[in-house]
């Protein structure tokens, strides 16, 4: 590693190569986002002026979406559905992962493989049946109707992440707690769960991001503000008149919904990476 670092910072040529490469990569990834940010601050007239930096900063679009009942309903839906799915997925995954790591039961590998295959299953393939099923059962356009698929599709990831965490906790801790007079549940509650908090956190963030970002289920399984989440709501935005493209409002709304995720990832990136790679190497 030491020699690698030396070569990286070594010659001027190499340094400028890596520097240039990084700038290109970052620009490629961020330009669309910055463009949206720029659009969101433009007023109606300058929206199509093709300038990258807005000539004047206007909060008109933000005011517009704040006044739009559609958008605030969508934010509440997104938050509620996201948080409930996260809570359910993480709690269920914790129990499942603990059982998978600590218990020896027939079909253990099957559960893990099953979980993996669910994670790889293309969601689009079940949208049609689910749409019909939800309409018949009354789950269509309800919170629960979205919470169930979100929870199901994120459970595998949560189980895998958490079982990697549990696997690293020494088994003797469980045994010590049992001998110290704790029931199996108390052992889990007082000893194992607190120690797995970093893992729980990681999976919670990942699950939340999944449900917050989902567009497919949100458009297919909702029809009104009752359960429509932000990504879906954005697609149904209308301008102030039917002949007007609501570009500015969409841009502002995009910025608003991207912010929490961007912040979360920036704040917890260490945790997320640690959680995803834990178990890969012995600590």
């Amino acid at each position: 590693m030491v020699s690698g670092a030396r070569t990286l910072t070594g010659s001027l040529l190499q340094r400028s190569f890596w520097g240039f490469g990084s700038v290109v990569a970052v620009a490629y990834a961020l330009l669309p986002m910055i463009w949206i940010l720029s659009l969101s601050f433009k007023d109606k007239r300058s929206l199509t002026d093709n300038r990258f930096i807005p000539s004047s900063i206007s909060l008109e679009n933000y005011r517009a979406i704040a006044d739009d009942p559609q958008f605030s309903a969508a934010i509440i839906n997104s938050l509620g559905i996201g948080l409930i799915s996260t809570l359910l997925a993480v709690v269920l995954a914790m129990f499942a992962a603990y059982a998978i790591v600590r218990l020896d039961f027939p079909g253990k590998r099957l559960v893990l493989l099953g979980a993996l295959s669910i994670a790889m299953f293309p969601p689009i393939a079940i949208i049609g049946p689910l749409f019909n099923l939800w309409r018949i059962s009354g789950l269509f356009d309800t919170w629960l109707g979205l919470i169930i698929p979100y929870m199901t599709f994120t459970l595998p990831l949560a189980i895998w992440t958490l079982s990697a965490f549990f696997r690293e906790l020494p088994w003797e801790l469980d045994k010590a707690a049992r001998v110290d007079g704790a029931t199996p549940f108390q052992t889990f509650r007082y000893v194992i769960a607190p120690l797995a908090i970093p893992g729980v956190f990681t999976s919670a963030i990942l699950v939340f991001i999944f449900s917050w970002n989902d567009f497919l289920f949100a458009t297919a399984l909702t029809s009104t503000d009752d359960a429509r989440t932000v990504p879906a709501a954005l697609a149904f935005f209308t301008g102030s008149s039917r002949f007007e493209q609501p570009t500015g409002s969409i841009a502002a709304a995009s910025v608003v919904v991207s912010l929490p995720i961007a912040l979360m990832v920036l704040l917890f990136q260490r945790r997320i990476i640690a959680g995803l790679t834990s178990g890969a190497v012995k600590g």
Partner: protein
Amino acid sequence: MAEIVLDKVSKRFADGTLALQETSLTIDDGEFFVLVGPSGCGKSTLLNLIVGLEEISAGQIRVDGQVIDHIDPKDRNMAMVFQSYAIYPHMTVRDNLAFPLKMAKLPKQEIAQRVHRAAQMLGLVEYLARKPASLSGGQRQRVAMGRAIVRDPKAFLMDEPLSNLDAKLRGQMRSEIARLQKRLGTTTVYVTHDQTEAMTLGDRVAVLRDGKIHQIGTPRELYSEPRNLFVAGFIGSPSMNFLPARYVGGRIILPIAEIRCQAEAHARLTANGIRQLIAGIRPEHIQDPGNTATDLNAGVSFHAAVDAVEWIGSDLYAYFTVRSDSEVWQAMPYDMGSVAMEGGTMRCVARLDPASDVAEGSLYTLWLNIRNIHLFDARTGENLIAPRMLAPQ
């Protein structure tokens, strides 16, 4: 305080391996009982059976007359100290010590009192607010001990509690554990692979191998009257020297000497019709004749080419090789453990007086105290002749 009785207990794992053969033993109230053996001998399994972390396959375990086979580990009121200490890393030392008491739903005030008392006993008072990560190995070990004593359990079960400490600290904690156990008078079952720990700590020691108890006795009994080759080779450091021997016409013929049998030994050997023997000699029973206080008539002298010498201050270890073409060696190499033998040669070691002038690379006359020779059946490994049944030629 409790008397623990194992009545024909055995353990077979789900995959069919027999971890513990049928075992019956009684651990007396207040006794310090040590289980010792090489790794994989079933000693930890036996401990787990007593504490209830593993279920017994057959037999019965009784504590003070009460059968505990189907009692959950949390209700057995035994405390365990693990090799890795298994202290809870997210709790402070205080919370670690209080955990078993909280589980037992003791009133807060009493918990505080007991934690304080245990912390005082172990010198942990100033560390109560710390997390385990900021403690040294020895302090963590103490926390593990504290968590065990705080609840006044029926028995302490310790699974190699000292093996993660460095040599000096290990010696220190060893005497501390011994003192603590005497003071509290709590029945203790202690598992170790280290025969020195077993000998110094145990009131009684059980030597295990392959899920079978080979001998139970006081450290002195195990040392001076090992029941078989395995116990003889396992107990004692450096370990016992083994030499092939033949029994011919009232004489024991060793590669280095010939010994006349006393009547009693003679009777035993002829009764069994045994000819092939293995002689076991403790290193301290080979001495430098020029530098020993023992009566030289009680032994025989022999020549040895000393090829290595270790002077450790209190003793001097002289290593030499004995040649023999006896085929006995093929029989029991497993039982003799660490004894190395290649191409008909055996490594032997003598514990000499440090003032002895034995040096490497020369031929010396050494003296063998034959009163202390053990004779084992070469086929079964069983100890046939206790010392003092033999006489010089």
